[in-house]
């Protein structure tokens, strides 16, 4: 600050120093000029002054002559003049008239048109002062003896007598002189302007004096004017010149001093506003700028060192700046990110389209938004990020940039999914726990309902022959031993009770009821199997496990697919945890149903197909569950057993099912779980379990029923 103040104060100091020096210099100049002029010899000054004034008079004379000469030359070219000069016209009235009508000639004193004989063929006297002292004819009379008298007149164009000058211009015909215009005009060389500066007299003469001479004692200047052939003689008042010169020097010096002093003072005041004040304002601006820069630097450090990713974009969403954390989070370098739109390179195929649209709309509408989205690093590794996007406005409420804070929430999301899965698992566990009790509770009434149905069935078999006999009795006529009246009553009762219908339908109803009970029993048993607590391994009939799974998942697949089972009758028992195998098969069957549903969505007339096959080899038992659903692309198939990997929407699948299944089969049962799928065709899951020796001392209740 001090250094900048010193720097800015220097120009101001120099400025005022310049002003003061200027004033002093001006004063010194004025004093010196006056002193020196008083000491200088006067003759040189006077000579210069007179010379200069003479020049002015000469120029004035010259221009006056030129004007008149040009006017006369123009007039001399007029056809009426030429005709009169040549004697072609009968009289000279035309010439006289032309002289009087030519305006330029009115400034002259006297004009004559003279022919080659020296005769005056036209004359005009505008100036009443003309007293005929000198005339053109008298000029010609001087050369009257010479027959070619016109030439000398033209050559000596200017003659002078007192204050009347004589100018003659030739009248040209076919390039040759045939006559002359001779004009007299009065010239007053001494006007008030020149007399005030010391001119005493100015005379033009024919005497050819020296080109230039000044006689100091008489102050007479003679100068030959070659242009007009006359000599200008001027005489000057010496005393007046001296006095005037001294006064001029004093006034010039004084005026100069005052003018310069005023100028410098004005410059000082102007400089104050144009230089000093702006300089101060500049200093102030510099200080404020320094503060702004410091503040900006601090803010930049905050942004740079934040743990979260910070992205600054322009008003179209293109990256202008990213901090270190953003680089680390995404794996892209700052240069790779700058100039791009984050969504174009960070988001991928599994990034939620609705969330992407929301972000896009927020940029378009310059609205703040906070959301979560799945992004991808440069290595295409997915990660969840919470984005807080904030627009920045200028003074005119126009968006100038966006600031996005991006926080990696992958761990948080995974934790939330785990918690959801855990909650689902707990629910299922709870349901499973209840299932056994419910199964038991349901089983008992199912049992005696089933027994009663059996009784009804047996009784019906006894009653049906009697009813048949009654029917025959009602139908046959004439041979019945019943009275007609009783027969009629019997027939009417048969009709109103619709006995025939009952006879026809009752067996089927009872049969269906019995089937229903059998099914309830099977479901209960399946639920019981499913809810089998713990993971203890038992010698298990996998066919039965399959059937239970199919029963439990019927509601998932029965509306969308046909089931085809091909279970190996002699399937050996395997030593597995039935509950866990159940869990695996249920998961696969549900996925199959969902895949078929996805493929045939909207096509209610079409149904898929689920095939379940069991096979056995000497060493292993195989369960194959295949479907003709939507299948999986290769990149999905490759990750199908990864934890938390799912192709379903959030909340519709946690991605844990197959991962757990895989874990159950491979790690807990030393088996293999393989998948084969083709996108748009279908999927086959193959479970292979090793056949293990059954412990001969295993308790019967440990065997799966």
């Amino acid at each position, binding site marked *: 600050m001090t250094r900048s103040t010193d720097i800015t104060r220097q120009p101001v100091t120099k400025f005022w120093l310049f002003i003061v020096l200027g004033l002093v210099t001006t004063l010194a100049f004025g004093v010196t000029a006056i002193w020196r002029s008083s000491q200088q010899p006067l003759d040189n000054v006077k000579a210069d002054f007179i010379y200069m004034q003479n020049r002015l008079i000469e120029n004035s004379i010259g221009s006056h002559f030129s004007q008149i000469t040009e006017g006369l030359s123009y007039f001399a070219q007029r056809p009426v003049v*030429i*005709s009169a000069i*040549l004697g*072609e016209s009968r009289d000279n009235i035309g010439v006289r008239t032309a002289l009087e009508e030519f305006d330029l000639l009115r400034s002259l004193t006297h004009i004559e048109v003279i*022919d080659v004989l020296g005769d005056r063929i036209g004359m005009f006297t505008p100036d009443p002062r003309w007293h005929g002292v000198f005339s053109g004819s008298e000029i010609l009379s001087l050369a009257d003896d010479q027959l070619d008298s016109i030439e000398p007149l033209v050559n000596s164009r200017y003659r002078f007598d007192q204050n009347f000058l004589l100018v003659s211009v030739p009248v040209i*015909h*076919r390039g040759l002189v*045939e006559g002359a215009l001779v004009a007299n005009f009065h010239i007053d060389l001494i006007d008030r302007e020149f007399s005030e500066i010391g001119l005493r007299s100015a005379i033009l003469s024919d005497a050819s004096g020296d080109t230039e001479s000044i006689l100091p004692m008489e102050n007479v200047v003679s100068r030959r004017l070659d242009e007009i052939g006359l000599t200008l003689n001027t005489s000057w008042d010496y005393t007046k010149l001296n006095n005037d010169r001294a006064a001029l020097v004093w006034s010039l010096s004084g005026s100069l001093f005052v003018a310069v002093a005023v100028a410098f003072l004005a410059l000082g005041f102007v400089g104050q506003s144009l230089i000093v004040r702006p300089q101060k304002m500049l200093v102030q601006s510099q200080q404020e700028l320094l503060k702004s820069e410091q503040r900006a630097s601090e803010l930049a450090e905050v942004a740079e060192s934040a743990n979260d990713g910070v992205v600054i974009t322009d008003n179209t969403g293109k990256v202008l700046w990213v901090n270190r954390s953003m680089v680390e989070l995404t794996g892209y370098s700052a240069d790779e990110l700058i100039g791009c739109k984050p969504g174009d390179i960070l988001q991928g195929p599994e990034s939620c389209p609705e969330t992407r649209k929301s972000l896009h709309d927020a940029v378009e509408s310059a609205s703040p938004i906070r959301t979560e989205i799945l992004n991808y690093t440069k290595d295409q590794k997915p990660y969840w990020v919470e984005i807080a996007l904030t627009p920045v406005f200028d003074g005119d409420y126009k968006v100038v940039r966006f600031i996005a804070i991006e926080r990696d929430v992958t761990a948080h999301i995974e934790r939330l999914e785990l918690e959801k899965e855990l909650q689902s698992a707990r629910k299922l566990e709870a349901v499973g726990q209840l299932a056994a009790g419910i199964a038991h509770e349901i089983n008992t009434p199912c049992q005696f309902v089933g027994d009663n149905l059996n009784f009804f069935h047996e009784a019906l078999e006894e009653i049906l022959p009697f009813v048949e006999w009654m029917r025959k009795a009602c139908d046959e006529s004439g041979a019945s031993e019943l009275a007609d009246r009783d027969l009629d009553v019997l027939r009417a009762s048969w009709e109103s009770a619709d006995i025939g219908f009952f006879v026809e339908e009752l067996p089927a109803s009872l049969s269906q009821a019995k089937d229903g009970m059998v099914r309830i029993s099977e479901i209960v048993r399946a639920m019981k199997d499913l809810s089998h607590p713990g993971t203890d391994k038992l010698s298990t009939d996998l066919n039965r496990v399959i059937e239970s799974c199919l029963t439990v998942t019927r509601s998932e697949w029965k509306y969308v697919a046909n089931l085809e089972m091909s279970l190996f009758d002699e399937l050996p028992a395997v030593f597995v945890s039935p509950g866990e195998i159940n869990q695996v098969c249920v998961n696969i069957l549900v996925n199959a149903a969902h895949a078929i549903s996805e493929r045939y969505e909207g096509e209610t007339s079409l149904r898929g197909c689920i095939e379940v096959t069991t096979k056995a080899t000497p060493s292993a038992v195989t369960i194959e569950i295949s479907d003709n659903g939507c299948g999986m692309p290769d990149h999905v198939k490759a990750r199908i057993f990864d934890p938390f990997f799912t192709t379903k929407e959030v909340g519709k699948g946690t991605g844990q099912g197959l991962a757990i299944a895989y874990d159950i089969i491979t790690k807990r049962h030393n088996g293999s779980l393989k998948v084969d799928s083709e996108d748009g065709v279908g999927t086959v899951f193959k479970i292979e379990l090793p056949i293990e020796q059954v412990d001969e001392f295993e308790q019967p209740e440990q065997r799966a029923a």
Partner: protein
Amino acid sequence: MHRVHCKPDFLKRLSRTLACAFALVSSVLANAETIELNVYLDADRQGHLASALAIELGVRTALSEVDYEIAGYRLNVVPFDHRGNVKRSKLTMRKYLADDSALAIVGGMHSPPYLRYQHFINWQRVLLLLPWSAAGPLTRVEFGENWVFRLSVDDTKAAERLVEFAQRAGSCDQPALVLWESGWGRTNEKTLSQSLTAAGFSAVPTFYFQGSLRQSDAFHLADKLAEAQVDCVFLVSQTTEGAQIVTELARLPNSPMVISHWGITGADFQDVVPAEKRDAVDLHFLQTCYPFDRADTPENVVRAWNGARNIDPSLDPDITELRAPAGFFHAYDLTKILLKSLAKHPGIVDIRALRILVHDSLEALDEPVDGLMSRYEKPFNVFDPSRAESVDAHEALGLDALCMARWDSDGYIQMIPNTAAALR
């Protein structure tokens, strides 16, 4: 301003008698030395040089045939250039009067100088011989002495020839006069008007133009003639102005026929105005009927031309190459007549007396003079202003000596013969 001096007849006769007596005495007392005489040539050697040179050539050729000497006189030709300025002619006349050796002035093609100073000429007894100037009044005075002798076209007859030709051409129903604003132009207006009136034309429009005519003036003049639907123009002009007028008339869609006085032939008209423009206006001009046939040049003309070529070897052997040939023929013949008259008065020292004697001899000459154009039995007569029959006393040529001519495509003059061409 002109002063007129009228001397009574007896005084005139007395002065002439005393002059002759003095001349006689002086001739007796004079020694046998050759007397130098000057013949002044007063012509426009700027704008009409061809005519001036042709006249000078004619004079010199005639003088050379007598070796410039006759009757004890040695004749010198002194040319002057009046530049078309009538007042310079006056200067020449002044010089002539101040020159004790100046016998005569041979005039150029212009009439205006001599018209303007006619009285001066006659009053001061300037012996003026005109081989070209055609203005009628030049050789006619109302009173006093007449010192102008002409062997040339006479405008009092020129108009008759021009109008007769126009009638012969048959394409002149709406004539107009286009005249140079000068004495010559004004005299021709009178004679042409009279001739046209006699021919049955009336209200013939007349257009005057100034000397030093500008092209724009000629342009407007042509337009005026077109507006007046003129089909025939009688032109009295000098060469330069005539060329401008003919050029502008040729540009008109219906160019009128131009019948011109001979003023346009004094310079190089045919070089300035090309053949197609001359033909466009069917230009014809007045000439005297001098022998100018390339195919048949008379022997005397050949002889005279050879003499001319001795004076100026640069001349073409063919006389038809001569520009302004009328000046040569007329000047030659006129000089022959002068010499014949001068020869009758040898040894006269006093120039004024000699002039009188020569003047009288010219009027009285009755010895034939062989000229190029004709044999002149009695070229001139005594001029008596009181007698009407002496109106042509100082005219050597008559109407029959006037012909019309034209330039062919190569610029050579072609004479158009009259029905009866005969000289007085």
